[in-house]
């Protein structure tokens, strides 16, 4: 089959998935299943196209016709687009299967509307990363934002959800303004809107325009990606959306912004000065650290994961920034390797983050809560989900031999390479500091997931909701198992993956061929595992003591859930260390009824402040509202005034502007 046919089939699948459920809306369940199955079919087609684009040496060009003057509806799948298409499609397939069962808890809602937005969302994400033309790109980018907005506000009856949706919409629209400015500045007076035209035109641009484009694109795509301090919509929108949607938004939608950054800054804009890369690395480091520290303070599982998205986007940006620095030094080989490390982390994060979100969804499905403090003891009731969550947690904490470590290891090497090149003292120190920040991030992420896993899955249940939990149906776990398997497999084949991804960079920027990339010795971990198995076997053989199950000894007091370590107490030391950043304010009230020492009660509240909110967003919001209120006076409601404005404008135009 030729490429055009496959692409049309893909479009038809998604459009059918969006429209047909409306016809079947009488039977909600049937509508849901139809929508999800079409999404699976469409995503599978996209996966096939992505693989084709990634392996073929020449980019695939698909022309669908002319929609506007000098604007063709044209799609272009080179290695980079193919890679992002694969990432999106992979997560979409599994999430769609998962949704069939999961969305049943929303059985009373308008599921046809959900199917419509969901299919449109998947389709537009795929079209964004394959568009070959900035007009088409912007159209689909905006459609993607709108579709995801409606998915976020799916349970719009709750006020919090509406608020979160509004913040999301405002932030992403501000972002779109900057993206559009960057793209149109880049297009300038070129003959066309195609990427090929832009890439050809950027060579003749002066440095000032290039810097302006860089800053605009960074702000625009940074808003979507959620880099600090533009991340405030992320921790609000993700908990508001249904969990399967959060999995997609966090796992792959943020990556479309990474795609935009790579495409615009590395492919189209040409090589920039090294401070571009430096800015991106610094922003990446800040995002990673702020993200992970904020995540540690969260007790809502979904918000915790949302902050980890901020962290991981930061890590990815560190890879992209490092690669840009190397390109500016005209060192294509380390640049390609650094870019490959960043892209590898894109794939890895997509996989383990969607796995974690889907596990959280399963927990929510079983217990109807996502507050860690209400959970506990789930490992005995939901063993499969627990193991899957643990796999995701280990991967995101960058513990070998899972995939999170594989990509971060390559990133460490790239950052060290930065300092090893001895370009200037700044970079010698900067590279090392970047590494340190990455290590700190990894450690804090591990602490965070010890908390998340330990508090919610171990020990005794803390509430009736957690006590009554049961394992989720098989079709939900079935869609998560491949993700967990991929976490392990990608950790194993990291060398091959890096070699494959480095070719993408070579395709973007022709340079000397990349030598075979070595990776960390995976065999050691296999050996390690092997040794553990042997030792375990030997212990059994040598007749270790039999298991004996009995009550935990609690000094004569019956142990109960209130004695357990809570999430808040677990994160207390870190809250104390990062006091300037988190600004915790605590209030303790003690009380007793009647006599002291009996019926003694302590209430403990600790709130986390946010510097970004207090010193940036709140003042900006306030001043915008104030200025708007002042300007409201020109809207007097009097028609004479309105006509007067027109009259005055006309005179001014005549006197001043008609000259030109």
């Amino acid at each position: 089959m030729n490429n055009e046919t496959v692409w049309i089939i893909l479009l038809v699948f998604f459009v059918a998935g969006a429209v047909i459920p409306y016809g079947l809306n009488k039977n909600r369940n049937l509508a849901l299943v139809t929508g999800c199955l079409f999404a699976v079919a469409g995503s599978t087609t996209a996966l096939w196209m992505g693989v084709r684009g990634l392996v073929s040496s020449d980019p695939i060009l698909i022309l669908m016709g002319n929609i506007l003057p000098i604007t063709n509806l044209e799609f272009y799948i080179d290695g980079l687009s193919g890679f992002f298409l694969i990432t999106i499609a992979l997560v979409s397939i599994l999430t769609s299967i998962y949704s069939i069962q999961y969305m049943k808890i929303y059985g009373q809602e308008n599921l046809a509307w959900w199917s419509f937005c969901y299919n449109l969302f998947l389709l537009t994400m795929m079209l964004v990363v394959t568009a070959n033309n900035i007009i088409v790109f912007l159209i689909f980018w905006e459609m993607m934002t709108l579709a995801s907005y409606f998915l976020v506000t799916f349970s719009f009856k709750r006020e919090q959800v509406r608020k979160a949706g509004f913040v999301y919409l405002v932030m992403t629209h501000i972002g779109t303004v900057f993206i559009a400015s960057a793209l149109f500045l880049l297009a300038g007076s070129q003959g066309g809107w195609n990427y090929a035209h832009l890439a050809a035109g950027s060579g003749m641009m002066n440095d000032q325009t290039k810097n302006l484009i860089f800053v605009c694109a960074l702000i625009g795509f940074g808003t979507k990606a959620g880099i600090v301090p533009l991340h405030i919509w992320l921790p609000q929108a993700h908990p508001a959306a249904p969990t399967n949607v959060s999995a997609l938004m966090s796992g792959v939608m943020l990556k479309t912004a990474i795609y935009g950054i790579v495409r615009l800054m590395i492919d189209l804009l040409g090589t920039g000065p090294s401070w571009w890369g430096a800015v991106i690395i610094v922003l990446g480091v800040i995002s990673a650290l702020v993200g992970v520290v904020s995540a540690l303070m969260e007790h809502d599982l979904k918000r915790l994961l949302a902050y980890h998205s901020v962290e991981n986007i930061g890590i990815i940006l560190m890879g992209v920034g490092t690669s840009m620095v190397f390109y500016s030094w005209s060192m294509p080989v380390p640049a390609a390797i650094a870019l490959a490390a960043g892209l590898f982390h894109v794939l890895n994060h997509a996989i383990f983050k969607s796995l974690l979100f889907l596990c959280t969804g399963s927990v929510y499905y079983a217990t109807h809560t996502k507050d860690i403090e209400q959970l506990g003891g789930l490992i005995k009731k939901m063993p499969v989900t627990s193991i899957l969550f643990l796999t995701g947690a280990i991967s995101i904490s960058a513990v070998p031999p899972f995939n999170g470590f594989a990509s971060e290891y390559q990133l460490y090497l790239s950052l060290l390479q930065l300092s090893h090149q001895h370009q200037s003292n700044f970079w010698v120190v900067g590279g090392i500091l970047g590494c340190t920040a990455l290590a700190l991030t990894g450690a804090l992420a591990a602490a965070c997931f010890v908390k998340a896993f330990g508090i919610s899955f171990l020990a005794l249940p803390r509430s009736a909701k957690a006590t009554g939990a049961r394992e989720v149906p098989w079709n939900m776990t079935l869609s998560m198992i491949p993700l967990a398997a991929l976490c392990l497999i990608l950790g194993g084949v990291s060398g091959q993956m890096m070699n494959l991804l480095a070719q993408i960079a070579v395709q973007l920027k022709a340079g000397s061929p990349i030598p075979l990339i070595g990776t960390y010795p995976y065999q050691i971990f296999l050996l390690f595992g092997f040794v553990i198995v042997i030792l375990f076997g030997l212990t059994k053989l040598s007749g270790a003591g039999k298991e004996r199950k009995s009550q935990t000894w609690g000094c004569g007091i019956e142990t109960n859930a209130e004695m357990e370590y809570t999430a808040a107490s677990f994160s207390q030391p870190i809250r104390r260390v990062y006091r300037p950043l988190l600004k915790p304010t605590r209030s303790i009230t003690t009380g007793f009824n009647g006599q002291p020492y009996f019926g003694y009660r302590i209430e403990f509240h600790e709130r986390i402040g946010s510097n970004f909110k207090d010193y940036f967003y709140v003042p900006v919001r306030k001043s915008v509202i104030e200025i708007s209120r002042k300007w409201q006076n020109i809207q007097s409601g009097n028609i004479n005034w309105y006509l007067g404005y027109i009259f005055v404008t006309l005179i001014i135009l005549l006197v001043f502007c008609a000259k030109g």
Partner: protein
Amino acid sequence: METIYGFFFLMAGLLMLPMRRIKVNIALLSLQALFLSIIAFSEGLGSAFEWHSVAIGLLTLLVKVIALPLILLRLVNSLQADQEKDMSAGPIVSMTIGLLIVGLTFGYIVPVLLQDIRVGHDLLGAAVATILFGCFFVVSRRCVLHQVLGIVVMENGLFLSALAITGGMPIMIELGIFFDVLVGVLVMGAIIYKISDSFKSLDIKRLNRLRG
């Protein structure tokens, strides 16, 4: 000769500015349109016969000199709204601004800004000034009926500028413009009825209430 007609055309517009009574204004408007049609006739019959300009003159005579004032007069009679209570700007201020507009047009806009346009200098000045009169007329009045008059004045000015610069547009477009003006005034008449029905007044200050 055309310059003199243009002068009268301008004067008719200028005199409308301080007038309070609507019927006087309608008469002045009709007079202004009459001079417009005379200008068109003199272009058509002056040196050589041009049926195009003559047709325009005839149409102006029919639509703007006779039909429109009649429609407006009927409207005024049925609403009994001849005397306007209040103006946003008083007669003296209005007149002063009108004179300023004339000065601005003939002193600056036409000789400096529009210096590339060489043809029909004096008529062009009268036309631009009349457009601005119309604008100011609309701005300075509080009665809805006056606003309709102001729009027609602006239209007259635009029409004269087209006539002065190019000697008129293709006949089909001219026809379209006449039709537009006629329908526009009819629609505005209908809306004025509606306003006077629901607000019991023609004062547009009452419309401030519509503000959200």
